[in-house]
């Protein structure tokens, strides 16, 4: 799968800077592992085709 080939470390460091979120060195590896897990899960959503007519409702009615 494509996402496994991505090294997320550079993205994480840059995104944290943009968001203004300091990442203490002690937590860095844990954040990377969690982000990799999130990315793998997100892939299930990103690979699923959605019609452009499907939009987010401003109020969600089950």
């Amino acid at each position, binding site marked *: 799968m494509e996402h496994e080939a991505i090294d997320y470390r550079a993205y994480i460091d840059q995104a944290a800077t943009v968001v203004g979120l300091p990442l203490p060195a002690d937590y860095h590896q844990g954040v990377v592992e969690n982000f990799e897990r999130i990315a793998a899960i*997100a892939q*299930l959503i990103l690979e699923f085709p959605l019609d452009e007519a499907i939009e987010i409702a401003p109020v969600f009615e*089950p």
Partner: protein
Amino acid sequence: MPELYPDATGIAQSVRNREVTAKAVVAAALARIAEYNPMLNCFTTVLADQAIQDAEAIDQAIATGHDPGPLAGVPFGVKDLFDIAGVTTLAGSKINAARSPAPQDATLIQRLKQAGAILVGAQLMDEYAYGFVTENSHYGPCHNPHDLARMTGGSSGGSAASVAAGLVPLSLGSDTNGSIRVPAALCGIFGLKPTFGRLSRARTYPFVASLDHLGPFTRSVRDSALAFDLLQGPDPADPACTQRPPQPCLPELTKGIEGLRIAIADDYFATNAAPEVLTAVEQIGQALGTTKRVTIPEAKRARAAAFIITASEGSNLHLEDLRRSPQDFDTATRDRFLAGALIPTTWYLQAQRFRAWYRDRVREIFQHVDIILAPTVPCPAPAIGQTILTLDGVETLLRPNLGLFTQPLSFIGLPIMNVPIQRPGELPIGVQIIAAPYQEALALRVAAYLESQHLVAAPVPTLT
């Protein structure tokens, strides 16, 4: 001889009939909490003096001929993310302990108090509700009343354990991805997660605004229905709360299951579970006279989308504290929160759009079916501290996977009742009774029928 652990309905009847005073009921509950909370760790705050005062006011109302309400003298607790006037809302965190006490009770607390119920305290949870275990690194783990070495499940573990142990007959919890249903199943009690937007969340500490629900834990179906009926009603203080008028469920309970179209969820919901869990679902299906199957499409993706939305919104909520004091977060979730703050918007938006697609597919299913049955948890309560779960021979992380079967359903706000299956000599397990949106009454009717057939029940275990 009076029942040792009457349900809320039974207590209120005794108080209203002057067979017992509210003060005696509340004093007995406080004594039981004092005795057993040290071994269960389910209450974080006990409001003994206030509870006794409130009970005296109920007794006074009865003495002067006033109606004390349908929950007269019933002690109840709330997950410690509900605002309680005068108490700091911790939400299981160390960080929020520095905040000021809440000025006002949460709407749902107000509604139970108006019905005569007596608030006795706040209950332990996973930090910021981000977990399925209630093993809190600041306040310790909550212990399962059926086996103290086992976890309660979470994140509303304290609320479930206190009801399961007979400390209180009623408590309120929250469910974003399964946090009412998972601990209800592992602790062997009833837990109702209503339709998204059905009950006000005003003045409760949020987790994921798109997915947060509140609901009751009880030991009888009539208590679930009664509490739910009293909690219903619009509330302008919660923008997601429905404008629909309350629809009482209690009068529906006696209608039975005649005419209901019931099916068992297959595919995703029939794999990755211990054999006894799937057997329990089959047995409940048999008791309800159904062998019909239904496939909820793309449940795995639904779970994934709920995960992405949860991580994104949860992290955004806590962004300021993540910047300022990440060291004060629970070590179990700190890095997940930090990572969640970096999720690209397009992932989040795709997850939200998928939610609309998936909701429409499930709506179609409910054109042909009234009730769907599915497991609540993949296994009975694991040991406290256990981190690995083996499902279908494959080792997976325990913490996220306890919500395997709950997460894809709360994702689109369906009303669901966990019914507890008791197995002599073994730990309880749970089955989800799932209905279409705003059809809580149907799920409660099915639960009431199963209870009348003695297939589901929540007896209080002996605590040793």
